[in-house]
């Protein structure tokens, strides 16, 4: 497993994580969107959060960004570069957003203001946040648009969001996100609304920007194959909890959690004929459900009585590989 050693274990012991999430919880009344997750992201690292709808993956991204609005309640700790973000004032968070953490959303049409031209929206970032002159800001906006692959940026500055295609709009959103050179980029399903041919380009762009600028990436997705294209590390979420994590290829080659294995088995790309598909029985759990044991137990082919009685702790099955399953080691060893 060469991929495991690629995580630079030597650095990890000395270097401090850029983002450190500990015991993060997000609740909306009786609904638990995130039920306590721990996650560290090192500077320059690319991490994918993989999960189905309702797993809490998107809410995690928003919580890091401080975007959970009332009546949502955030508990636990989110430390960015040593600074605690949970419970911070809006003003303090604003200082972090942009140069610290930036975000790209799924729906690019929603993320841009329809009544201002693209140019205005990019230029404003520099004039307002950095106090630049309009001319200087305009030059930088053009440079950014070129960087994200928009042809003839000068002539498109005055166009409005609806005049761009979905893919181009998402490129503009990416440009705005990286404008202040963030140290962490959170991308929340940025290609889900796009066609495959367009998606490929956006994924390539994100990977390239991440590698060139050395920023860290937290990529939220429901698509295994997409996660694999942009991230080096994988975090699998189920029912508001992290169930498995490790280097992405290592996880795919040798799963240590029944849920991850089942997800792979139900992916059409992994088999040759439909009859080989192995769907996960049942439905994802209700967010208001209370679990005494493992949340996946009701749908798990391996579940025994213990699984619904007691929630498993994280088991380290190999260097950098953890799984929240009573049978993690057995699964990993192929038993």
């Amino acid at each position, binding site marked *: 497993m060469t991929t495991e050693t690629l995580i630079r274990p030597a650095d990890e012991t000395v270097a401090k994580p850029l983002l450190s999430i500990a015991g993060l919880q997000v609740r909306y009344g*009786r*609904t638990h969107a995130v039920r306590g997750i721990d996650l560290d992201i090192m500077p320059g690292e690319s991490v994918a959060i993989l999960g189905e*709808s*309702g797993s809490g993956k998107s809410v995690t991204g928003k919580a890091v960004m401080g975007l959970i609005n009332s009546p949502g309640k955030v508990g636990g700790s989110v430390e960015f570069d040593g600074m605690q973000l949970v419970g911070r004032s809006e003003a303090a968070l604003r200082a972090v957003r942009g140069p610290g953490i930036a975000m790209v959303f799924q729906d690019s049409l929603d993320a841009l203001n329809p009544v201002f031209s693209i140019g205005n929206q990019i230029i404003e970032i520099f004039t307002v946040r950095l106090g630049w002159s309009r001319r200087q800001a305009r030059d930088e906006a053009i440079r950014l648009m070129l960087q994200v692959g928009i042809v003839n940026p000068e002539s498109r500055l005055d166009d409005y969001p609806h005049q761009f295609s979905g893919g181009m709009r998402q490129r503009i959103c990416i440009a705005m996100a990286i404008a202040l050179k963030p140290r962490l980029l959170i991308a929340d399903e940025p290609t889900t609304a796009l066609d495959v041919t367009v998606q490929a380009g956006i994924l390539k762009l994100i990977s390239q920007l991440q590698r060139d600028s050395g920023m860290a990436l937290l990529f939220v997705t429901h698509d295994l194959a997409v996660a694999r294209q942009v991230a080096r590390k994988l975090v699998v979420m189920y029912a508001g909890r992290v169930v498995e994590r490790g280097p992405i290829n290592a996880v795919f080659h040798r799963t240590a959690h029944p849920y991850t294995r089942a997800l792979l088995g139900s992916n059409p790309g992994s088999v040759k004929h439909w009859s080989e598909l*192995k*769907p996960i*029985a*049942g*439905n994802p759990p*209700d*967010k*208001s459900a209370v679990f005494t044991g493992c949340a996946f137990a*009701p749908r798990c082919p391996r579940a025994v009585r213990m699984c619904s009685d007691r929630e498993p702790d994280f088991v380290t099955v190999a260097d950098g590989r953890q799984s929240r399953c009573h049978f993690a080691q057995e699964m990993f060893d192929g038993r």
Partner: protein
Amino acid sequence: MATQSLTLTPPRRRIAADSRLGLLLRSPVALLSALVLVFLLLVAVIGAPLLQDLANTQNLRLRFFHPFSLERGWAYVLGADALGRPMLAQLIVGARTSFLVAGATVALAATIGTTLGMVSGYIGGVMDAALMRISDIIVTVPSLLLALSVLFVLEPSIVNLILVLAVARLPIYLRVSRAQTLEIRERVFVEASRALGKGAGSIIWRDIRPLVVPTVMTVAMLEIASVMLAAAGLSFLGVGLQRPDVDWGTIVSEGREYLTRAWWATVFPGLAILITALAANLLSNWMRASGDPLQAAVMGATASREEAARP
């Protein structure tokens, strides 16, 4: 076969939809509103025939008799008006007429307006354009003026009053139901119905109507109060109801002249309209919410699924 793995465990959250009555009992405001309305209706239906004569009995010695005194018997407990007629008896008799006029007007206008609105919205074309123009015209002419001129020509009677008011209030239902139909028409389940082979009539009646009716009901409940007031205005101008027929509106307008000397002759019938309108309003709100399976699930004790929150 994959059926083995496809078998679903029936989860605990799937409790059969609560009955409407059960939901009503659990909502104190809606329950109170319903009780008030039922009480007023019962009083009107049972009490009015018994008190018809008493309500119109004049007794000038009891002019402006003060309320809250049992000296002259319970009929005078809310005082008497300028001609010494007992307020309570008048209110009870007036209740019947008010409910009859308002109820019939609203029912008529809502039924015709909604039907036309749905057909017009779903089918569109020339009929839609024509109906909308007619409705524009009705809206432009002040409804009071319209009713006034029609009733001036026709004989003022309860039936004519209802017909005229119904025509004047028709555009509201027409527009509300048409606007909703235009939106529903574009939804996928209507397309699915067409793919199934359903005709326009069936789609309007079975797919669109159940979604339009709750909104119309809310509007109709709100309209009850306005119709009561409109009827009162007409009575005041002398083309509405004439004694011995009397409704709450008539009593208010008659009492208004003596507002400074006998507040009770205006305030009590006014309160009756206010309470009815308020109860109708609160109940209509609750009806709209509970008629929706999504909201009913939230209102009931069962937790709604995450998907239930989707629009």
